[in-house]
């Protein structure tokens, strides 16, 4: 098979492309089952298979060619309306796709097709091809009006196509021959449109053309000119995107990412140094460096971002196969399939997601019979949702199935000897439901070949946590189960809060951070109480267990006048971490620790700060575990959501205006809270601005925006809420920052539209809700233009 080695590049390109094409094929075929009359989908699947068949014949993969050939014939009949798609046909076609995948894998590994026999599959395909002849539909004429595809077009195109012309039986092709053949192919292209005259209206949907059938009329008129730009057969463009993109080795992107990480660190150091010098030129240069590094970082990050659809696209097939096997009807819906996340993270969630979806279909959604008895529609719904929130990606998998009965889980845990009857009874329903994530726990009454072998949910949880994510499950018996996964956007560069304990600084990933609390000495005495010797803090009525960072690090405990508490979320627990001081937030580059330190789970890694010093990165989860914070100890905010499958709770920042009105800003729009001395506020034209982290931050007086005319605050400092609006920072000047609350965002009235979303009662006060985007826009449309572009 030496010749194959010569062809390596071509074969490799063929493999890569075929894999992509097959994914599309799967998607289209399942979609087609829903809408069997879609000519567009039929054409798409036909084209896909046709390409693979053609190339495989060309490269001398005879088995692959024979399998795809029958499939193609079958599809051509479907496309021409001679037969209609039955579930049996779909199943066999999908089987064929699997066979093609297996063959491709074989070729990838060994360079040859191997000895597997696909005669049975070919026979099955042929049987359908022959057997269904009798059931030729009578709707052909009706179809003709809508999608005029003469049956002849298929045969002709298959026969006339240079692919078809390549002798499929030639076992070996020499590279030179191939080059010649390719060249001939190029030259053979131009005359084609000419030889196929206007009677051949189906051509556009069949071969390499990017145009769909509607453009056929104009396409016919083209001469050799278009042939030059016509796509070559290998890059047959189903999606025009392929023309404007190139493939890049992931390893190269990884090393670019590392370099950018280094650049970001160097920039941070540079900025700190430059800030202490009186050199204007240096300041200007570092400012530019700052902007460029920022944009470069964003750009490189973007190259690694992929839509979650890359993982999701496999799921319709999974769900379909599974529901057919189990005799269930499942409607899979996807929302937010364009939500992007880092490639490495995407890879890491692939298996857990598939597992969760299989679980939902297998255990969650009941069969038609039982659904009917329960008064639900026979077809179950599985909803996948993905969206960004607070620098993280949320993925929800919600089914409307039977739900999980906490009683059953309790009983199971007791029979498995994992819990005593008493401790099981003392558990809240929510905790009981989360038992499902314990190792060796399966609730399936019968072990099926699909899932329910007791390895699964715990592995899912471990895998999600490994990439810094968290997983949460809520369920209502009879109504369904929702699994919510929260994962970071990227692993390489993360925003973190820098705190200090003793001489060291530590970084806490912002994803774990909920809020910061500062207690003055007199406040601290009253506010920090102890329960069984454990310090707790009353945070808006809830008891928050407190953990001393110094104690956890076995450092000498020192008394501080002011108590700083970082409220952290680890898994579904919340706790307050008492630190010596809270420094700043910074973008940090996560670096692994040496093997000598890996066993200390408390550290997730280390990073180099702007001044060149090293800060250890704290793992909130490990901190909670080490401090012995149990599920019981934490009354969590999310626990309240247990009842509702998807509740519209939102975290809000409550601020006061000059006239005493209360206004709430969605917390996810808030970047930071700042306090500027009045002297730092400068003016650009009529706008108030302030120099902020090397940028010019435009300020917006919320009083003006909401027409609140109170007495101007005479204090020396200005409270500023730094908000993100369309990716830009805007400082919102408020009279006072009051509180952060989490509330149901049921807007009670719509009194005003000027920058407000409405009003609601929050904490017994009527509070106006501000829509930052429109508040900024209504006041000063040009305000944002001087900001850095992008």
């Amino acid at each position, binding site marked *: 098979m030496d010749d194959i080695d010569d062809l390596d590049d071509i074969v490799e390109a063929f493999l890569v492309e075929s894999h992509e094409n097959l994914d599309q094929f799967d998607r289209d075929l399942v979609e087609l089952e829903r809408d069997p009359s879609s000519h567009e989908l039929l054409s798409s699947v036909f084209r896909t298979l046709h390409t693979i068949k053609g190339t495989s014949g060309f490269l001398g993969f005879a088995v692959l060619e024979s399998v795809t050939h029958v499939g193609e014939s079958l599809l051509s009949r479907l496309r021409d309306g001679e037969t209609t798609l039955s579930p049996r046909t779909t199943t066999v076609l999908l089987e064929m796709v699997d066979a093609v995948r297996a063959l491709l894998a074989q070729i990838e590994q060994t360079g040859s097709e191997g000895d597997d026999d696909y005669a049975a599959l070919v026979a099955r395909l042929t049987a359908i091809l022959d057997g269904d002849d009798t059931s030729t539909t009578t709707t052909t004429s009706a179809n003709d009006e809508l999608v005029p595809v003469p049956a002849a077009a298929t045969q002709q195109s298959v026969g006339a196509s240079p692919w078809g012309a390549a002798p499929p039986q030639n076992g070996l092709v020499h590279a030179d021959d191939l080059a010649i053949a390719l060249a001939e192919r190029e030259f053979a292209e131009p005359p084609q449109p000419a030889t196929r005259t206007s009677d051949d209206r189906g051509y556009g949907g069949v071969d390499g053309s990017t145009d769909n059938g509607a453009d056929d009329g104009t396409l016919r008129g083209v001469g050799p000119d278009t042939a030059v730009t016509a796509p070559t057969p290998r890059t047959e463009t189903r999606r025009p995107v392929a023309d404007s993109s190139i493939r890049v080795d992931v390893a190269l992107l990884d090393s670019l990412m590392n370099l950018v990480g280094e650049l970001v660190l160097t920039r941070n150091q540079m900025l700190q140094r430059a800030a202490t010098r009186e050199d204007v030129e240096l300041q200007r240069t570092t400012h530019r460096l700052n902007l460029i590094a920022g944009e470069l970082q964003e750009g490189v990050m973007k190259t690694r971002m992929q839509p979650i659809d890359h993982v999701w696209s496999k799921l319709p097939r999974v769900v379909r196969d599974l529901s057919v096997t189990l005799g269930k009807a499942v409607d899979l819906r996807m929302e937010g399939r364009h939500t992007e996340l880092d490639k490495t993270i995407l890879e890491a969630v692939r298996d857990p997601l598939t597992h969760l979806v299989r679980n939902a279909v297998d255990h969650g959604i009941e069969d038609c019979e039982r659904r009917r008895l329960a008064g639900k529609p026979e077809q179950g719904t599985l909803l996948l949702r993905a969206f960004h929130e607070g620098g993280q990606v949320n993925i929800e998998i919600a089914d409307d199935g039977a739900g999980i009965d906490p009683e059953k889980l309790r009983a199971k845990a007791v029979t498995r000897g994992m819990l005593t009857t008493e401790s099981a009874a003392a558990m809240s329903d929510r905790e009981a439901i989360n038992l499902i994530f314990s190792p060796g726990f399966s609730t399936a009454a019968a072990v099926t070949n699909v899932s329910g072998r007791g390895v699964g949910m715990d592995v899912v949880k471990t895998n999600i946590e490994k990439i810094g994510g968290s997983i949460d499950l809520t369920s209502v018996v009879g109504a369904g189960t929702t699994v919510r996964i929260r994962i970071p956007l990227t692993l390489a560069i993360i925003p973190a809060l820098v705190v200090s304990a003793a001489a060291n600084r530590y970084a806490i990933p912002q994803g774990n951070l909920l809020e910061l609390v500062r207690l003055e000495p007199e406040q601290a005495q009253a506010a920090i109480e102890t329960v069984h010797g454990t310090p707790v803090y009353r945070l808006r009525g809830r008891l928050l267990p407190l953990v001393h960072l110094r104690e956890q690090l*076995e450092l000498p405990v020192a008394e501080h006048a002011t108590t700083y508490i970082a409220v952290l979320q680890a898994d579904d627990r919340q706790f307050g971490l008492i630190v010596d001081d809270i420094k700043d937030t910074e973008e940090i580059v996560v670096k692994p620790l040496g093997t000598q*330190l890996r066993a200390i789970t408390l550290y997730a890694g280390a990073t180099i700060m702007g001044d060149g*010093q090293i800060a250890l990165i704290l793992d909130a989860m490990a901190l909670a575990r080490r401090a012995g914070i149990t599920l019981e100890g934490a009354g969590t905010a999310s626990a309240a959501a247990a009842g509702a499958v998807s509740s519209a709770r939102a975290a809000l920042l409550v601020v006061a205006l000059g006239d005493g009105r209360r206004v709430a800003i969605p917390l996810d729009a808030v970047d930071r809270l700042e306090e500027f001395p009045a002297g730092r506020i400068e003016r650009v034209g009529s706008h108030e601005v302030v120099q902020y982290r090397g940028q010019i931050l435009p300020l917006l007086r919320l009083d003006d925006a909401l027409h609140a005319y109170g007495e101007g605050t005479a204090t020396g400092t200005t409270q500023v809420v730094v908000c993100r609006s369309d990716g830009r920072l805007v400082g919102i000047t408020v009279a006072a920052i009051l509180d952060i609350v989490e509330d149901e965002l049921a807007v009670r009235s719509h009194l005003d539209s000027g920058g407000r979303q409405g009003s609601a009662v929050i904490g017994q006060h009527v509070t106006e809700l501000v829509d930052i985007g429109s508040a900024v826009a209504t006041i000063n449309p040009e305000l944002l233009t001087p900001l850095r572009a992008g």
Partner: protein
Amino acid sequence: MSHQYCTFVLDGHLFGVPVSSVQEVLKPQALTHVPLAPAEVAGLINLRGQIVTTLELRNRLGLPRRDPGSPSVNVVVRTGDGGTVSLVVDEIGDVLEPDEDTFETPPETVPARIRALVTGVCKLQEHLMLALDTERAVSVESAA
């Protein structure tokens, strides 16, 4: 065939590591203390953007602890798994190339803790040099 050794002094004893494993020798660096780390770990240093674990070789060998403030030198070595570790020693010595036949296995009287890390004892004219096994010297099991 003989090997070159980078020598250094610890508590008055001469030690050596193969020159091929030494990346560089540094003057004392700003150390970041790592709470909960094993006693052998002196801390972390920032070596041109790379975070390098620093081991107090005296502690690793069970020698008396270094007096705070006494002079020291960092010997940065490469480990087999592609990592980099910095070893804190008292004083750096010459690069020696002793003959193969001047080496002997360490005598039984050498404390077990040192013997485990030493591949051989080299009889130099004036004193002895203990050849350290770099891999074993840097593999510290942390108990935490």
